[in-house]
Every structure is written in C-alpha cells, then in structure tokens.
C-alpha cells in the first residue's frame, strides 16, 4: 500500500506529463484514458481489488461474492435512435456487473441536472431508466439529485453504481485469458457509436442506424449454463473492440489474433465508417460482449449464444496465442496481417 507520506509527494508521472490539462481523449476509452487510470488513479488508490483494472471489483462479504461497479453517463445527444441516457445508465452498469458473471441486484441513480433542463425530458429519461431497471431485474435502491447553474452541464448527467452476486465457481477476469482460448463476439459491432454520431452530425443512411444498447446479463447467464469455465468477458464500449482486446492482451500477457472477415459489421455501419474515415473496430458498442473460453468449449458456448436474441449473430473471431504478449494482430481481408492498436486520443463526440 502507498503510505501517506508517498501520497503527499506524489507528482504527475510520465507519460501524463505531456498534458498539463485534461483533453477530451482522456475520456475516450483509448490510450489516454488508459494512461490516466494506470498512472494516476491506480497508484493513488492502490489496492488489490482495483489493481486488475476490471470493469468491476469482486469481493467476499460473509461468504457471498459480490460484484461492485460505477459508471457516469454524459452522452450527447441525450436522446438517440435506440435509447437515451436513462436506459444507457442502467444497461452500462448492469453490463459491467454481468462481465464478472454476476447477477445484477441493485443500482443507484445520481442525477446532475442543469438549470433550465426541461422537466418533460427529465421524465422521459427517468421513465426509460425505470423500464431498463425492470428489464434487467434490478431495483434502483438509492439515488441523489444535484442542480448546477446554466452553462455548467449539458442538461443531464447520470451516475449509476451497481451491486451484483457472483455465482460460486465463477471466476471471470481480463487477466484469465489463456493461450488456446477462442475469442467469441456476441454480434455486429459499431451500432451505438454510429447511431450517436449520425444523430449528432445529421448523417442520413438508407435505414436509421439504431443503438444496440441492451442488458447482457441474461445472455451471460445462458453462457454460464454451458460452462462456469469462462475465462474473460468484456463489453467493448468506448474505444471499441480494438481497445478492449488490447486491454485483455495486456492484462493476461497473451497475444490475440483475430480474423477481420469473421467480425460482423452491419452494411450501414460499414458505409458510415467509410465515409467518416473510421475503423469499426474502434467504434463503441453498448449491447455486445466478447468472451474468451477454452477452445474445446467454444462451439457449445457459441451455439447457446446464437439461440439467445442478443447473440444471434455471435461468431468466433479469433484465438489467444502465447506469442507477442500484449499485442493484437488481425488477419486482413486480403490475407495480410496488421497490428490492431489501442485507440489513440478521441475525435468522436461523447458516446456514453
């Protein structure tokens, strides 16, 4: 543990010193966010629950293993095709719990409201939040409301925290991925990020691109029925698949190889990405997960996922290797290979 003396003499470490102020990229879920957590927060909060940098902490209380997580939601626009900040605030948090295999039980909801924000909009957001909680099987057990002056917020920000119960025999974490594991993706990528972007930038496509925002616990529960030996689960939100896979490769000190052609990308998402110069691997999702499972269990888990409405397009997209630890390599559509790096910086509007 860091002693109090050390805390007082703590100075901003490299590579954070390159920035004297927070820039948008520090919240983008890519390299800058990662550096901020790893070099500033983690060393100062220094404890074994935080250290693995999973999306949730898992600890035992009187014999029960609990998962605990928190997330803040600052999405702009507040209303987007397929959802709004209210259901996003529940789904984001219950998904972080579900990625440990936990059954979500309770969430909190803390609102930061801007002076002048419409009560009608607040009602719409809260109705969605309540419905999403019911759908996910959680109760909003506590909450808070604060109001800030006009110009000091974007209408509404919501923070949620959540508690869930981890079943016995389940031990899921980013560091548990092992060479030989199959990498399974639960469905098509890029929908949430492009839905937000197209709404915000006024882009039009053949059909409206709708966010995939959804609670994933039920899908995870089905997967756990096949086996409790799921090594790693993550929902690739900000920073997209690329950043999530890099985090796992780093945490488990393994290499990951993916087959680009195996990754489902909806036609409209692909077209939007072409137009905007984005790589779908870096675009956010809010209702997808990647699972790392021992290869001999992969087809059974995949089959179960495909029978669930949120996993219909699930596919095995790659495997874990012992070579090039910490690095993600993609085999491209023409048969070449490339490095898939963590997202650098941020050029997109806020997406969650």
């Amino acid at each position, binding site marked *: 543990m860091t002693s109090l003396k050390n805390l007082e003499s703590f100075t901003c470490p490299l*590579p954070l010193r*390159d*920035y*004297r*102020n*927070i*820039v*948008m*990229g520090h919240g983008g879920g890519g*390299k*800058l966010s990662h*550096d901020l957590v790893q070099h500033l927060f983690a060393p100062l909060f220094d404890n074994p629950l935080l250290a693995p940098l999973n999306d949730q902490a898992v600890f035992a209380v009187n014999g029960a293993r609990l998962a605990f997580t928190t997330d803040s939601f600052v999405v702009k626009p507040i209303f987007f095709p397929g959802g709004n900040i209210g259901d996003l605030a529940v789904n984001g948090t219950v998904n972080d719990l579900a990625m440990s295999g936990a059954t979500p039980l309770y969430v909190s909801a803390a609102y930061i409201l801007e002076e002048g924000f419409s009560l009608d909009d607040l009602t719409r957001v809260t109705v969605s939040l309540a419905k999403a909680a019911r759908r996910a099987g959680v109760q909003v057990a506590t909450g808070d409301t604060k109001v800030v002056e006009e110009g000091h917020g974007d209408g509404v920000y919501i923070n949620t925290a959540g508690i869930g119960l981890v079943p016995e025999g389940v031990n899921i974490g980013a560091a548990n991925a092992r060479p030989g594991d199959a990498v399974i993706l639960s469905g098509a990528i890029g929908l949430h990020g492009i839905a937000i972007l197209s709404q915000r*930038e006024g882009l039009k496509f053949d059909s409206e691109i709708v966010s995939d925002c959804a609670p994933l616990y039920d899908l995870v529960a089905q997967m756990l029925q096949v086996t409790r030996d799921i090594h790693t689960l993550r929902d690739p939100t900000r920073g997209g698949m690329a950043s999530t896979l890099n985090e796992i490769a780093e945490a488990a000190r393994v290499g990951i190889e993916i087959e680009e052609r195996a990754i489902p990308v909806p*036609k409209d998402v*692909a*077209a939007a990405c*072409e137009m*905007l*110069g984005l790589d779908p691997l870096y675009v956010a999702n809010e209702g997808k997960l990647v699972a790392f499972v021992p290869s001999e269990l992969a087809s059974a888990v995949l089959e179960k996922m495909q029978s669930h409405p949120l996993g219909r397009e699930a596919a095995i997209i790659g495997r874990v290797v012992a*070579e*090039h630890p910490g*690095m993600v390599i993609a085999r*491209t*559509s*023409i*048969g*070449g*290979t*490339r*490095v898939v*790096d963590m997202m*650098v*910086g941020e*050029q997109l509007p806020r997406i969650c």
Partner: protein
Amino acid sequence: MQNVDQFRDEKKVRVVLDELARVLTRDWTLMEICGGQTHSIMRYGLDQLLPRQIELVHGPGCPVCVTPLELIDKALVIAARPEVIFTSFGDMLRVPGSTTDLFQVKAHGGDVRIVYSPLDSLQIAREHPDKQIVFFGIGFETTAPANGMAVYQAAREELKNWSMLVSHVRVPPAMSAILEAPENRVRGFLAAGHVCAVMGYWEYEPLAAKYKVPIVVTGFEPLDLANGILAAVRQLEQGRAEVENAYPRAVRREGNQPAQKIIADVFEVCDRKWRGIGEIPESGWRLREAFRAFDAEHRFQVSDLRVSESPQCISGLILQGRKKPNECAAFGKACTPTRPLGATMVSSEGACAAYYRYGRRIGQ
C-alpha cells in the same frame, strides 16, 4: 458496400500479384504519392504480400504533414483569441506546433471545433455574427474545390466574420522536386487517384516524358493498389514511361472541370514551403487578390513567431521517400501517436502513423 468489398478480395488481389511475380525480372522502387494509399497498404498488409524485389517508398501526399510549422503556429495563436471560433478538419487538432497543439488550445478554453466540410464552417459563421470564424484550409487538389467554394459563397453572402487560413499544395511540383533530388531512387509513381479525379492526369504527361518515369493513376483499395503496382512494373520492365490510368472508375484524363474552374477562380499558384522539405516553386495555391479579404493571415496579423522543429524528427526525409519511418531513432520510442514529434506521426495519412498503427512487428 458490396462494391467496395470486391476491391478487398483476397483471391482477386492474389491473381494480380501472381501476374506481377510473372513479369518481374529485377528490383524496382516505386513511390505511392498519397498518404491514404500508404495507410491502405499498411492497413491491409499489402506490403507483406508483394514480391521482395518491389520496394514501396512513401510519398509526401499527406496535407497535414506538409503544412508548414509557421502556419500551424499562426493557427494556434489565432485559435486562442477570445473572439475566434477556429474550425478545422479533425486531423489538424493533434499536429504539434512549436510548443502546443489545437487540442491543448481547446483545453485552455479556445473555441476549436471539428468540421467535416468548410461549408459547415460557413454555417457556424452565419449562426455567430458576433464571432470571427476561421477555417483551416489545408490540403491538396482534393480539398481545394470545396474550400474554394466556401470562399466563393462567403464572398457572395458578404460574410464579414469568416476567413480561411490557407495552406493549399499541389502534387506535380512536388513530384518534380523528388525526381530532381540527386539521391532520388524512385523509378515509378503511383499517382494519387483522388487528386486525379479532380485535376485529371494531363498535368503528369510532361513529367513522365521529361523524367522518363511511369506514372500510374492509382486508387486506394488493396486491389487498386495491386493493379497500380503491376501497371508501373510492366512499363518499367518494357522500358516504357507513360501516364496510365489504373483507376478508370473514378478518373478521366480531363478531370472534373467544374471543380477545376472553382479552383482557378478563387486561387492563384504561388511558391509554398512544405514542412520538412522546404520551399518548392509553384507548389501552392493562395487566394486571389479579389478574395484577399477572406484570408485569415491578412485579417489577423500574427508576427514575431519563433518556430522550432524537434531536432530528432526526420519527417522531411520520410516525406521525400529517402527514409522509412522505422529507420528513425525516435520512432515508437520518443515519438508515438500520443506524443508525436512530427506531423507524420499524427495524421491518419502520415507514414509514421501508418507504420506505428498497423506495422509494428513483434519485438519492435
């Protein structure tokens, strides 16, 4: 998307590469002009699939990379002014000036906004009559027509609060400069398909004749690039040096004439300094006298700037195809996309960024 997918098909690319292997008898060094092509080559790993005898060197066709440091420093000073809303394509925001970048200016309270089109910048000007809106007008022949159109519209609407910081550059004079350099190794060019979609390729015919180099108009998908390389090698092996169009689905010899007319109406040719390379005669465009009122350099008199490049950065040699990014001592160590020393590590079209992002190999 089906249309694009056929140009990313392994079997089709393989057929072209097999033919390439068949016609090839010796080593050849080719340059792809455009940074977009460099990225595509690295993104799809095409470089790994080419016969060893083919060396691709990466050209100066990255507008963000060649924008002179003096102008970036000017942009930073203008963007920090309280009355200014500074609008730019996203790529420019992270390009390092002498001491800072536009992201940092934004973090310190400057109003810096990403736009997807110069016309969006005009719209901001209409909505904020009390502010001065500046658009960072950079790019090659590809962005010039839209930027020219924005100036034209601003003039027609008599917008008093909009101006453009201009750093337009032209490809053909840069190709001459590369070919004139005593250490030049380039034997053939893949010309930038999108530049040619605007300008056509008649401009390149005197170059091919004078310097005896094949110039093949080439697209950006892996199959386009493979076809461009095959066409250039075939010419070299047969001792020909012609301008050839390997991107006929987008390019005609005469180009897009209405777009050329807008450029000619709004801009005039000028000498232009290229970052890392130096001044190249007649390689730029500036606003004509009639539109000078919309030139941000005139509107905001910024002087007394002292520019300083990183002494470690070799982006000039990289932009001329004389060095590869991984031959730089700072590459991936002192210089990364989060801590770039030079613009080639920043832009989505920069060669160093392409090498870093896609090409780092195990052990590097």
